[in-house]
């Protein structure tokens, strides 16, 4: 009983603290909403995990309409995404959830979808101009990403510091660039004074190029102690490259990676520590957001608060990382090392 009272008081407090006049909205289960989950492309683990999370939410909400998980093949990502949005509009679905890989090229298709009364929710990667998008479900705060990476670098290189380099995805990947900028901002703190960043290279999210780029970094900067790769493809390729060259004792690898793929390198010390958010939770939260927008229980406007099942309460705010657009922020990071990577890889 006491727990209930406490929980009630806490809820009340959160309700009063949240900006705007909206109350905490709870979803009404059992409404038939046709929804499409659209990843950047099919066939890689993180998106599949997001799909699992969305299915979990769909089951909880007892949506009688089956969730459609549609995506293009890797070769056809940009054109394929636009095609799927266009087809879904013709079919007259109620909501589309997009991890956008097409930049602003997807805007015309997304706008047509909205004109047809479809709710467009982006997740993982937003529409840069926010046109044609109702709300973006962000995995983590970009500023926090920078701090997490700076902290991992400090922990791995130790108090005496040293030189490190960055292996990113492509030079025009919006997420990665924002994260790197946030990390450089974080490094200005005197706490990190002894960490010196010496170069940035790009592996275009291809294993082969990332692998070669990691080796080129070691050749170009013989003294580096760490390669920081804020990309799940790059971090694995860099770890394998260091292992193949027998350099794991000198050059460590860190960044953002998927536990299942990193398991071997974390256990053998090549990549002692890395971070990621839960893609299962991201899919779950995205489904809740899109469902409640589609049923009309919540509106896509700043200050709107709602409860997303087991994850708790969220509020829609203006997106501080873009000029326009609204955002729901998920967070937080999970940090993985030898102690917890095995459990997470299951």
């Amino acid at each position: 009983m006491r727990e209930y009272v406490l929980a009630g008081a806490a809820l009340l407090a959160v309700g009063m603290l949240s900006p705007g006049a909206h109350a905490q909205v709870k979803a009404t289960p059992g409404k038939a909403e046709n929804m499409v989950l659209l990843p950047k492309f099919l066939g890689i683990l993180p998106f599949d995990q997001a799909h699992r999370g969305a299915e979990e939410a769909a089951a909880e909400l007892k949506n009688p309409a089956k969730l459609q998980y549609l995506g293009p093949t890797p070769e056809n990502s940009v054109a394929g995404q636009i095609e799927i949005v266009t087809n879904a509009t013709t079919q007259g679905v109620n909501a589309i959830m997009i991890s956008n890989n097409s930049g602003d090229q997807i805007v015309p298709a997304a706008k047509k979808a909205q004109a047809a009364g479809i709710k467009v929710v982006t997740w993982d990667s937003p529409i840069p101009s926010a046109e044609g998008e109702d709300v973006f479900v962000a995995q983590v705060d970009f500023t926090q990403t920078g701090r997490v990476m700076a902290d991992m670098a400090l922990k791995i290189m130790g108090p005496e510091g040293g030189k490190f380099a960055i292996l990113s995805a492509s030079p025009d990947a919006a997420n990665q660039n924002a994260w790197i900028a946030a990390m450089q901002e974080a490094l200005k703190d005197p706490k990190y004074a002894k960490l010196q960043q010496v170069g940035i290279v790009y592996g275009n999210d291809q294993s082969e190029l990332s692998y070669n780029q990691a080796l080129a970094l070691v050749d170009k900067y013989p003294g580096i102690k760490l390669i920081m790769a804020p990309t799940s493809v790059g971090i694995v390729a860099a770890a394998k490259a260091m292992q193949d060259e027998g350099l794991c004792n000198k050059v460590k690898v860190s960044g953002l990676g998927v536990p299942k793929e990193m398991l071997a390198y974390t256990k053998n010390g090549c990549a002692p520590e890395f971070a990621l958010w839960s893609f299962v939770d991201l899919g779950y939260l995205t489904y809740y957001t899109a469902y409640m927008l589609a049923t009309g229980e919540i509106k896509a406007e700043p200050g709107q608060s709602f409860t997303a099942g087991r994850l708790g309460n969220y509020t829609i705010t203006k997106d501080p990382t873009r000029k326009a657009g609204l955002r729901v922020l998920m967070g937080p990071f999970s940090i993985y090392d030898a102690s917890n990577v095995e459990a997470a890889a299951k």
Partner: protein
Amino acid sequence: MTWLRRRIRPEQIREFSLLLLIVVAVLIFGSAIDNYYTSRTFNRIASSVMIITVVAVGQTLVVLTRNIDLSVGSIVGCTAYVAGVRIAADNGLPAIVPVLIAVALGAAMGAINGVLVAWGRVPSIIVTLGTLAIFRGLLVDYSGARTVTTDSLPPWLVDLPRLDLFTLAGLHVKVMVALALAIVIAFQLATSYLTFARQFYALGSNPDAADLIGLPTRRIVLTAFVLSGALSGLAGFMTLARFGNITVEAGRGLELEVVAAAVVGGVNIFGGSGTVIGAMLGGVMIGTLEQSLLRLQINEFWRDAVMGLLILLAVASDAVILKRLRALWARADLEMIARSAPRTGEAP
């Protein structure tokens, strides 16, 4: 001059000049990059070229027959993944099993291409553009988004890329590099001396004539595609060993590098001329440039532009220089015939 002409074919001059170009490139990069002349640089280039080279050998055979195989990247991805899943499920399998799985699956995929091109009479660029997408699509479906991860593979496979065959003066000759080299030598010898392999050239030089003299043209085309698929399968196994983590993206875009290696190496895109050794040299040239430009850390976009320029130069030099050389050789042959002709004509 006559002696030289009898000993050397124009294609060999082309290959020799490419070798010279590689040396020039190495000298230029050596002066621009510190610590360039080390065994490390050699190892880097060798390891990065080996996979491209194996696929380029198969591509050469296909291009010789006036066809092209654009599906090689997808075949590499599929075979790497399927072999990886199999060995991950049972780490105790003998080493030869994943190799055989990859090669057999690759050969089967190549056979599909070959049958469609030879019997379906569909241009190879259309067929293989289609199978490029179909094979990758099947892989996406089959994988169910699972990744083959390093920790699920047996230690011998993960350590294979590090394994040296022998070490000579600090140059580590890796087992996989030696394997690629052995394949180049074997196919070079076969295409030079074996009757059946010479038929690739005959068919590509003049398909009508090949048909007229009764060569089994369809079977030759099929064979070229099956071999290209099988070698892509072997490259798939090498990809599995080298990267450990295999997603559905493995081998994506490889077809461009492979076609580039063959073309830069003097394999004529219109069929009938070019050698396996040439394709390997083309691969080495591209690998040297790629690795060295990475070391120089020049802008991403410039690197691609340099690569494109190289391909254009190769094709242009083929059209201009090699044509002149061939004309020179042909004229000399004609003169020789002309010189011997009057004697027979003078006996009334």
